[in-house]
């Protein structure tokens, strides 16, 4: 059976062009980029080329790009690094209720160390209100961290507006752009972004490489201590192959962004239309337009997400869900709860995330298989039975 991969927000395969580019850096050009001999210069040059490629893609300067081991490290560094550097100025951070756990759990860690964190609520589409943000700012606020686009429901936050507010108030602004980079146009200057996290494996580079953009003039403490790599800001021997891959992948994504966005939006609309027109009692989560081109998140009433995923898997379809059972806890996705979904509906969510490798035929196959699967699970569901007996939809 053919595998149809609809979980591109979880990870993506390394692109062929990227793989070709990085292969020499495993065993031919293996020298430590920090060494003095000639062959080390090749590694060094490759890393610096990647730095330029990344900088160009987000409108940054080359020396504002720092390579890390991934999106989670970048988020941790931006937040803990700011906290450590600015704790004398104040101990208040503003973030949102729908951040990735790399941000949320880092903030919770700081709470244990005496920090005050404001978690801004979102509306039913997952958008924060710039007014709420303004009202949350205090004299001791040192950081605003708002994700660029949400990983579950795809909602794109008003980043330029948030950046403007942060700048006017002299507060650092960090954005977790792991899901947005390569999919949405980003200009760190136009948007007044001070720090931006990205991850390689979400855009066709290998796992284990990420970036933190740090605007010149922004001072944060180190997270990883050790050698003098990355201008003494991030220790650890450069992951040359990963870094080269990051540079190549982001260069490709930036060059293709208009075309990819158009194609993914077309596929996305096909998924949304196909599901909502053929299946009762379902709703699209997230914003109708302000959303990532490749993201669909739909809740099906009366059924539970893990069962849905297992049955889709039996048809070769890979997708994800915000149900508790897929997170290993009793609570469903914090994002779906934050947009006001009842627990029942949050448990019954399905996330489809598309890439340019997906086709309209695959989307049609998904719809065709999904219809009987939802029907089957509803026939099994005591909630649906109650509803049919004259109760109401939960």
């Amino acid at each position, binding site marked *: 059976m053919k595998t149809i991969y609809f979980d591109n927000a979880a990870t993506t395969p390394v692109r062929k062009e990227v793989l070709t580019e990085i292969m020499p850096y495993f065993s031919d050009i293996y020298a430590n980029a920090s060494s003095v001999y000639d062959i080390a210069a090749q590694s060094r040059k490759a890393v610096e080329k990647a730095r330029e490629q990344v900088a160009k893609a987000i409108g940054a300067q080359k020396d504002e790009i720092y390579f890390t081991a991934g999106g989670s490290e970048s988020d941790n560094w931006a937040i803990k690094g700011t906290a450590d550097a600015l704790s004398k100025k104040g101990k208040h951070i503003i973030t949102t209720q729908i951040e990735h756990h790399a941000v949320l759990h880092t903030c919770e860690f700081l709470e244990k160390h005496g920090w005050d964190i404001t978690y801004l609520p979102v509306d039913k589409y997952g958008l924060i209100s710039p007014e709420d943000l303004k009202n949350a700012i205090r004299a001791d606020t040192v950081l605003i961290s708002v994700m660029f686009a949400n990983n579950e429901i795809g909602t794109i936050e008003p980043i330029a507006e948030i950046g403007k507010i942060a700048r006017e108030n002299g507060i650092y602004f960090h954005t977790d752009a792991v899901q947005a980079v390569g999919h949405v146009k980003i200009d760190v200057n136009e948007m007044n972004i001070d720090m931006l996290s990205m991850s390689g494996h979400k855009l066709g580079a290998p796992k284990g490489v990420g970036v933190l953009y740090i605007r010149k003039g922004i001072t944060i403490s180190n997270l990883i201590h050790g050698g003098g790599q990355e201008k003494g800001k991030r220790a650890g021997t450069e992951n040359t192959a990963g870094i080269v891959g990051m540079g190549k992948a982001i260069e490709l994504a930036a060059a293709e962004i208009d075309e990819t966005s158009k194609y993914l939006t077309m596929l996305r609309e096909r998924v949304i239309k196909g599901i909502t027109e053929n299946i009762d009692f379902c709703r699209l989560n997230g914003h109708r337009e302000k959303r990532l081109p490749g993201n669909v998140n739909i809740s099906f009433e009366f059924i539970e997400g893990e069962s849905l995923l297992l049955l889709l898997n039996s048809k070769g379809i890979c997708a994800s869900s915000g*149900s508790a059972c897929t997170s290993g806890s009793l609570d469903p996705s914090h994002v779906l709860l934050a947009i006001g979904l009842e627990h029942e509906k949050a448990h019954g969510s399905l996330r489809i995330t598309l890439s340019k490798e997906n086709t309209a035929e695959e989307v049609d196959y998904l719809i065709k298989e999904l219809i009987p699967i939802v029907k089957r699970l509803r026939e*099994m569901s005591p909630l649906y039975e109650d509803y049919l007996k004259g109760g109401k939809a939960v």
Partner: protein
Amino acid sequence: MEYSAKVMDHFMNPRNMGQIEDADGVGTVGNAKCGDIMKIYLDIDENGIVRDAKFKTFGCGAAVATSSMATELVKGKSVDEAMDVTNKAVMEALDGLPPVKVHCSCLAEEAIHAALWDYCEKNGKKIEGLKKPVNDIDELHG
């Protein structure tokens, strides 16, 4: 997380899925908040033998598989013997469950007990060791 072949078999081909009209005992446990609701129907003859058992479940793969297995295990048993269908028995019959899914097997045991309790209430009977069901997964599993 990986399910055993038996769990997957009972999830993909659930036994006894459905409902029994005018069942002698019906038990519903769990709550939608936690993502698991199990409803078990028992058809019990005049000698106290479980003639038939059916289930309806809102929940994950393990919840469906444990419901399926629990109904299989109680069929043909006397109501006293049905008390032996514990969460451990259900789990063993399924070749185990991942640790985070153990609560599903507890739920299956609770659902059987709740259905037996309903049967006792309706018929003025008593089963040794049977306690009034707690219809809330939060209280059961904290």
